């Protein structure tokens, strides 16, 4: 399903994912500037594929998907995926595609909005995620809203001569800081 509009601070908002936004994901993910902690930098990047996958995202009952907007422009995406509605548990993820905007706190605010929504509106019990341990910005953004480390997957992937570990986190309503 598509998430509702959630206005945040510092010009950041989560807005319902549109097909036009979705078509930006492929080109974003192919850039080396974002690939250090991301996927293989190839894929089925076609309009036809985007339309099919967007429909799956929009129709799916077990995920909530947003575009991250900054000053009203789409700059990335986030969501909660593979939600088990009995356990009330899901996996969260985030991607900032506009690498020229890294370091402005956009991801941190998006993570706060998403996590707040998980507790207040979805009545979830737990959210969890995997983050490259060396991606300090992403890890810190998650820790600020209550994610705590539950493990470390050593030597998860190999880039430019180094093995990268992955940090596994989990969060609960009771680990969420007081609302500002």
């Amino acid at each position: 399903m598509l998430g509702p509009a959630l206005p945040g601070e510092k010009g950041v908002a989560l807005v319902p994912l549109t097909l036009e936004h979705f078509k930006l994901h492929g080109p974003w993910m192919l850039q080396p500037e974002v690939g250090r902690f991301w996927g293989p930098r190839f894929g089925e990047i076609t309009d036809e594929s985007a339309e099919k996958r967007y429909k799956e995202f929009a129709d799916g009952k077990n995920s909530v998907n947003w575009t991250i907007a900054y000053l009203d422009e789409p700059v990335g995406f986030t969501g909660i995926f593979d939600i088990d509605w009995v356990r009330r548990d899901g996996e969260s993820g985030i991607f900032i595609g506009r690498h020229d905007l890294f370091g402005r706190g956009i991801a941190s605010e998006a993570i706060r909005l998403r996590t707040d929504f998980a507790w207040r509106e979805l009545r979830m019990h737990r959210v969890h995620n995997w983050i490259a341990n060396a991606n300090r910005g992403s890890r810190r953004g998650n820790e600020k809203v209550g994610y705590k480390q539950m493990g470390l997957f050593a030597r998860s992937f190999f880039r430019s001569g180094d093995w990268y570990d992955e940090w596994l986190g989990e969060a609960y309503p009771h680990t969420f800081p007081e609302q500002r």
Partner: protein
Amino acid sequence: MALGGTIRGKTTTLRLPTEADLDSYNRWTADMRVRRAHSVWHEPAMPATWKERFKEIAKDKQTVLWSIDAGESFIGFAVGHFWSMGNGFDLNHFVIDPDEWQKGYGADAALAFHRYLFDYLDVRVVTVDLRADNAAARRIAEKLGYAEFAHGHEVHYRDGAYVDELKLRMDKETWQERWNAEREYPPLAAEATN
């Protein structure tokens, strides 16, 4: 595309699943003993739905299904997922008929299966998630050489309460140290490549 082939253990054999197996999958999925121990692969459903699921997994490029026999009896199934880059494997479901528990079939099939993954497919790492109170599965995993890399709290819900989840991994190096004598094929003869 993603139905598994024959892997022989001492007392069990993983083999190509067939539509005739689907009734048993459904029965095990509906068995509360199985559901207490594991997450289910699919919920119980009518035969037509299982046939659709079977068609889907047969076409899947990365998820693979095996049925497990012990002698002439059909006693379980395994489902796992190959990583997109092909060097790792997540073992998602490994189900033995609860009427056949405590006969050593799980341990035998698991050893043969991991021999296939490390000795034949040459994967780098295998992962598995277990409910923290599934003592039988933990014993098998520890004996194989799995080590815990994460502990999720209050992850699974059943019997009116949450239970923790253990995330375990086994690396190729561990397999080679612990099970080096477990080979599917004998070493090549000296003159084989002459």
